[in-house]
């Protein structure tokens, strides 16, 4: 059995989760503060992948990053980067596709913290960054873990978006969900079953771990 689709999937999920942690945390914090029209619009855009058919998202990404068209053409000419039918394209699509799974729980967690926590820290002379690092972040840890696991698990299960932008190149863009589909197409049910079983086991263990962890944590850090 060729295990490369499984490794590729895990690599994709890990990189996507890491990138989303880096950009999702500050973005969720910013969104959790005072509302404005621009924030509402940005939040709506971030949430779109939840309701949009993955193939639609993949189609637009394919158009946007195709080397024959504007942005994709420019990226290739200027930086020699190609997002279509490449692993970096899968990462980009996954980051966009899984973004609401990271942003939404983290934003809610920030919003649930009383505003007086930040205010108390400011009156002690602490900067916004110190307050974020030492007060806010440690108090949303359970939500952050849930968000990271959900993002990772959601990326494992991607199909439509990755197929549209990445295609089915073995070792490059052929992730596990595509390998399942491809095996079924070739009537190789044994391979399809093996891939499916591994994906099922990984996601089940991850979701179960989050449930167990959250059971032993207070639901809200302030309880």
């Amino acid at each position, binding site marked *: 059995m060729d295990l490369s689709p499984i490794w590729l999937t895990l690599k994709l999920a890990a990189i996507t989760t890491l990138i989303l942690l880096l950009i999702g945390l500050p973005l969720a914090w910013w969104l959790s503060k005072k509302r404005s029209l621009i924030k509402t619009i940005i939040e709506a855009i971030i949430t779109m992948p939840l309701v949009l058919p993955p193939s639609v998202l993949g189609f637009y990404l394919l158009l946007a990053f195709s080397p024959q068209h504007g942005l994709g053409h420019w990226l290739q000419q200027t930086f020699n980067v190609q997002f279509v039918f490449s692993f970096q394209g899968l990462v980009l699509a996954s980051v966009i596709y899984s973004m609401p799974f990271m942003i939404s729980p983290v934003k809610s967690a920030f919003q649930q913290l*009383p505003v*007086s*926590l930040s*205010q*108390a*820290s*400011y*009156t*002690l*002379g*602490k*900067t916004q960054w110190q307050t974020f690092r*030492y*007060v806010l972040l*440690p*108090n949303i*840890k359970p939500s952050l873990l849930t968000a990271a696991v959900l993002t990772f698990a959601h990326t494992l299960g991607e199909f439509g978006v990755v197929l549209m932008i990445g295609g089915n190149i073995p070792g490059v863009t052929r992730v596990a969900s595509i390998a399942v589909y491809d095996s079924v197409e070739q009537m190789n049910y044994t391979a399809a079953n093996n891939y499916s079983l591994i994906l099922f086991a990984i996601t089940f263990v991850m979701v179960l771990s989050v449930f167990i962890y959250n059971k032993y944590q*207070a639901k809200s*850090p*302030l*309880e």
Partner: protein
Amino acid sequence: MITVDIKKGLKAYNGLQILQIKKKFSAGSITRITGPSGAGKTTFLKMVAGLITPDSGIIKTNNTAWFDASQQINLSPQQRHIGFVFQDYALFPNMTVKQHLEYATDDIQWISRLLKIGGLGDFTDHKPNHLSGGQQQRLAILRALAIKPKLLLMDEPFSALDLKMKSALIKDLQGLFAELGATALIVSHNPQELDGISGDELEIG
């Protein structure tokens, strides 16, 4: 001397309500702030601390303007160096008693002294959810004092303390205020609570 002459529109259930306060607080004084619920006592304290911006007016300490709407001066809470005791305590759930004080100051001797005054010496490794309401309130007071502020704003700071603890703590605090040369503005519902120590009163609403 702290001079306050500010205005702020507050949204109330019966429309916009104007909070207007004009008062001078002499250095080292203790002022009791009273008034009905929703009158703007907490908002007033937060405006002095720089956590809420007044619509107009000035807040001045000695000759330094903390806030001056006409000159667009508005110092941040960090620059004002004010001790603030929040009504909901605003303790950090992730920090122990000791970590709360260490977050505010590096002065270890000062921390030990505060812990002794607050009677929290045996609870240094406890997080807020393992403290009683009274202990949490005392920690909030100690944390505000940890930065050795010249101005202390306290929002219902003794509401969860029993009578014995309250009178002992108030006595100790009075000594500390004198030592720090601190001015204190204390919101209190209980008229007897600050008898004998507060020389002035401000009624809001």
